[in-house]
């Protein structure tokens, strides 16, 4: 057990190192950062001072080392646009994004589990087609389209929900729903196909032979098995969540990390982007490790 955790942690660290190198390398490709910090009126001396203070006169591996050590201490640079430390911006915005994703996660469970289970248990039925429809949506339509449709219906026509911002509980509904639909789309697909396999399996047949009712074979026997593949993809869902939140926050003007990213793109504020991507990498690597651990704990066949 300890070996397993240790091994995964080492793998995680290696991944993070590689990712940080890529991120670092890309930003060095963007041209001279010092040039971005000055304006037309600055003198050459000022430029050189900034150049030195950013450590750009050092050899590249030293620069990388400085970059990593600073990052580990929480110093992710200064935003070009707002002149605030990136880590401070992140600290302000991350809770909002997490709140959004948290609500979305709860919605996802209530949408995906019943739909996926019933779709798999009753293939060809209306609910199966509906589940496949939701699932197909996630692959056929960018997430902002769903956002627009919801705004049109609920804000513009029905006027019962706010079209943006993070004010009051009502403002959570539409953006969370958008993320939830896309999360659910993936989960429904996996859950449905696992359920189909499980229901055809011998142990479900045997359970029915024992006298277990059909609904119990579905909701207790088959579902327990089918949830395992869903859990194994946990890391992937975190990545999807991050992606969706970036776009959804742009659509709904939600004051989270995604919104920060969108403004940073417009102003080419790469310290912010760099900091966000690095943080996201950390979150994803941790999420993947946690997923593996949780899965190993849940599947009795993997006894550590």
């Amino acid at each position, binding site marked *: 057990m300890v070996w397993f955790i240790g091994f995964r942690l080492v793998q995680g660290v290696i991944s993070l190192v590689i990712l940080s190198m890529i991120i670092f390398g890309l930003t060095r490709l963007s041209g001279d950062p010092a040039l971005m910090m000055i304006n037309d009126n600055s003198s050459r001396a000022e430029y050189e001072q900034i150049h030195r203070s950013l450590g750009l006169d050092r050899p590249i591996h030293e620069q990388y080392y400085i970059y990593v050590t600073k990052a580990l201490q929480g110093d992710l640079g200064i935003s070009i646009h707002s002149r605030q430390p990136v880590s401070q911006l992140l600290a302000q915005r991350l809770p909002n994004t997490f709140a959004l994703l948290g609500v979305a996660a709860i919605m996802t469970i209530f949408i995906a589990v019943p739909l996926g289970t019933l779709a798999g248990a009753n293939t060809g039925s209306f609910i199966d087609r509906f589940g496949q429809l939701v699932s197909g949506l996630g692959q056929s339509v*960018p997430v902002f389209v769903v956002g627009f449709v919801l705004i*049109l219906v609920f804000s513009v026509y029905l006027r019962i929900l706010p079209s943006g911002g993070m004010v009051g509980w009502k403002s959570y509904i539409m953006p969370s729903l958008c993320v939830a639909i896309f999360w659910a789309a993936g989960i429904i697909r996996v859950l449905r196909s696992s359920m189909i396999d499980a229901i055809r399996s011998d142990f479900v047949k045997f359970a029915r032979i024992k006298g277990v009712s059909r609904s119990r074979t579905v909701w207790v026997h088959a579902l327990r098995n089918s949830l395992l593949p869903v859990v194994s993809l946990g890391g992937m869902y975190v990545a999807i969540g991050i*992606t969706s939140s970036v776009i959804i926050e742009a659509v709904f003007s939600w004051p989270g990390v995604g919104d920060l990213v969108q403004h940073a793109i417009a102003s080419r504020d790469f310290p912010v*982007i*760099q900091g966000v991507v690095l943080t996201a990498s950390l979150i*994803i690597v941790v999420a993947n490790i946690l997923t593996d651990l949780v899965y190993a704990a849940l599947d009795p066949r993997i006894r550590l």
Partner: protein
Amino acid sequence: MIPATVATSAPKRRARMLAGAPIISLSIIAIFLAMVVLGQAMTLHAPNQINLALKLHPPALLGGSWEYPLGTDWLGRDLYSRIVVGARASFVVVVGVLLVGGLGGAALGVISGYVGGTTDALIMRCADATLAFPIILLAVLITVTMGPGTANLIIALCLVLWARFARIVRGQVLVIREQNFVVLARSSGVSGVTIMLRHVVPNVVNTLIVVMTLQIGWIIIVEASLSFLGAGIPPPTPAWGSMAARGRDFLTTGWWVPAVPCLSIALVCLSFNIVGDWLRDRLDPSLRGGPD
């Protein structure tokens, strides 16, 4: 316990192959390709021509005129013509990513699957690492650091997409490798490269076609999302995603302005996905339920 079904005759099988072809989806794709190929020839007005007097006119079926069939945006530009030109922009990205990322990934998959061993392990580790990462953030990073542009966008998408192709193709290769005709070739001393080219590759073509078609929708979605964020196809090209983004502010005054590009994206993606599923069922059903 339930007995197997019965074999049918060859003519019946062929008819069944062609039957159920998704006509609507294929038509939409045909229209899309027409827009790509004909480009400017299909437009009604200059796509970037500003005409403030005509701003925010509704589409023809909602009270507007047929001269501007899909309405105009806030600068009086013809939405239909902008959609037509935007089609080509998206398509260029799709082709670029499929050619470089798709074929490149497939090649790596063939090598990885056939050679095996450390090479295989190495390639697959890289693939897993890339697959786990959110493409949007990676593409944003590349665009912001290396500058906006279609070429950078294609590079960013290739960096993630190659892994999907590599994985799926590798799976196929692992199966083909153990088939008798390959084992025979190996044991008679035919060189690895020749085997890969002459025997393995022709057998993965079917799979490749299916996977490519299914990925087109994904590429369009990612490109649209990136353009939406401002990190995709740069202005002044009217990319569908950026049209939607800029149109967000007009949901109340002219909802068709964001709706038209959104609908275009949705229809084209859906059509490619449906056709891709249909091709998969015909050419290689074993891919059903594969990785996203």
